[in-house]
């Protein structure tokens, strides 16, 4: 099955609408068989990039290659891709089986073979026996599965998905994320997946390409993107984080008047930010050497089911007040023992978890 996929090479793709850059010099390599997610807020250009891959949008310039072959001038129907649309885009005048058979029919596949491949595709998406149903008799999740079956029935080498799960409710969405990932692993098609849901991206992808303002901001594994966001935008967009202003001089960092121990190699001097993930903070009873500590007042404490969220107000000298969010997994502490609102609290952050960003890479 390894030869059933193609790599995608995107180079300098730019698309403007008037003065507005929908895509600006985007270059990106998707390796064969990879599950790559284009992640970004709405209007970031991620869908435009997917449409360029599918052939529905022509870039102003730039190159798109599938397995080494230039396709940027090819119309969509000659690109041989499977595509799943956000709103399913099922054909309402055809039954489920007719929908799935459609690409096979276009390819002149024999009746018998079509029937077999449709059955197989429906089985793959766990819809065996529903071929005779009308499309409007299906639930949202079933429709999504039909759309998927239709996109994979002709065994395309590339599968494009445009926010396919956004219309589903949360529980179903999370189930489908895992299923889609498993499906990808079994079919081994090169998959480009668009979403604005960072959690979805983290869950499913081999690699994530964060797109904003038409530009590729960061490309990396979910772990890299999460642990080492390149700038404040990504730090804020991926997961929860609090940013504390820091000054760096000669490899040392200070926040307010407080010196911080750091493990990161900071070559430049100037304004930085400390990225604090809520789950990395802990309540410190005893201070140890391998962590930095912050003292503050509990502003809010909220029970959220799987975790307890606390908002802690710090008063930084020479700077003012900032808030830190702290998330404690349910069961890790006895809630009754936690400091209450307006009580003093000391928070610890391991040196290894103290990650600094250059402030100039901020969102402005």
């Amino acid at each position, binding site marked *: 099955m390894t030869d059933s996929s193609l790599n995608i090479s995107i180079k300098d793709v730019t698309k403007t609408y008037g003065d507005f850059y929908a895509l600006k010099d985007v270059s990106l390599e998707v390796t064969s068989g990879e599950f790559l997610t284009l992640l970004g807020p709405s209007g970031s250009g991620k869908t435009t990039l997917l449409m360029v891959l599918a052939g529905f949008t022509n870039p102003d310039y730039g190159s798109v290659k599938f397995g080494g072959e230039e396709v940027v001038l090819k119309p969509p*129907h000659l690109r041989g891709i499977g595509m799943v649309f956000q*709103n399913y885009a099922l*054909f309402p005048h055809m039954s489920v089986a007719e929908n799935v058979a459609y690409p096979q029919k276009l390819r002149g596949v024999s009746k018998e073979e079509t029937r077999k491949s449709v059955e197989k595709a429906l089985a793959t998406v766990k819809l065996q026996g529903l071929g005779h149903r009308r499309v409007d008799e299906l639930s949202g999740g079933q429709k999504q599965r039909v759309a998927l079956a239709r996109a994979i029935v002709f065994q395309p080498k590339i599968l494009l998905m445009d926010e396919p799960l956004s219309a589903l409710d949360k529980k179903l969405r999370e189930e489908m994320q895992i299923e889609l990932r498993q499906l990808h692993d079994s079919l081994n098609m090169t998959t480009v997946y668009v979403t604005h849901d960072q959690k979805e991206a983290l869950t499913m992808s081999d690699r994530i390409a964060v797109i904003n303002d038409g530009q590729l901001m960061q490309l990396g594994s979910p772990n890299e993107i999460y642990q080492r966001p390149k700038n404040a935008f990504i730090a804020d967009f991926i997961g929860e984080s609090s940013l504390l202003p820091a000054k760096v001089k000669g490899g040392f960092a200070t926040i307010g008047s407080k010196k911080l121990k750091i493990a990161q190699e900071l070559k430049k001097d100037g304004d930085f930010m400390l990225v604090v993930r809520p789950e990395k903070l802990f309540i410190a009873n005893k201070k140890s050497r391998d962590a930095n500590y912050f003292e503050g007042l509990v502003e809010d404490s909220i029970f959220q089911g799987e975790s307890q969220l606390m908002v802690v107000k710090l008063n930084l000298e020479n700077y003012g007040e900032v808030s830190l969010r702290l998330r404690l997994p349910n069961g890790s502490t006895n809630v009754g023992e936690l400091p209450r609102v307006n009580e003093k609290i000391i928070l610890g952050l391991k040196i290894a978890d103290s990650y600094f960003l250059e402030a100039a890479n901020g969102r402005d």
Partner: protein
Amino acid sequence: MVGIEQNFNQAELAQLARREHYTFFGLTLPYLVLVGAMIIVPIGWLFLLSFIGRDGSFSFENYERMINSKAYIRIFLTTFKISILTTLFCALLGYPLAYFMSQIPRKWANICMIGVLIPFWTSLLVRTYAWLVLLQKKGLVNTVAVDLGLLSEPIKFVHNTSGTLIGMVHIMLPFLILPLYANMRAIDPHCVKAASSLGATPVRAFWTVFFPLSMPGLIAGLLIVFVLCLGFYVTPAVLGGGKVIMAAMKISSNIELYFSWGAASALGVVLLVVTMLILFIASKLVSLDQFGQRS
């Protein structure tokens, strides 16, 4: 004692549900009364009148007349021929236009729509005479074409079937475009994209996806145009030059000729019955439900 069938507020809730039903029924009541008063009663009355002879007694003379004179069958044939041709030309002209409008941005489509609707705001009579002025033997079109040497002699555009068709197609076109355009706008553009991503050429995607999905609008438009054409009077009277006699014209002239509603209403009854028959057969041939979109 409170039994299981009679929980403490079950009766009140049931009454509430009933009241809701009545309210909904009440909302449809004005329409039902209107349909009854404006459609069912007059049609029934028309039907009864058609069996009343000139001397005021029950008689089949109004129907016998239609069987005995060849003029009537010819008039009905003309009526259906003109209506079908008008409907056909409207579809041929209107479908591409509606399709074009459905594919351009809404802003531009709205401007096109104004263009489609402007003729609606002018009286039918004015539009019909305008065609006469344009197309008659010494009208604008013929004069210009002859002067420019495009024609050696004027073409007979009006006072015949072609003139009638030109006028009627022009008047009926908006009735086809409006439902068709609304339908086309509602078609998910992703469906056509999906088709081409799955390997369909633009032409193939149009015929296998867009066209079938536009059928409900097309059929609605065709029906409206066809049924409206059947009752046309002014345009064939003015542009047909007496060569195109349609049922409505004969209905009018029969009132004048026989001084009796019966002589006219019998024609109306036959027209109605034949039309319903045609629509019934058409609905058997093209199952409307097949194109039903509930999602």
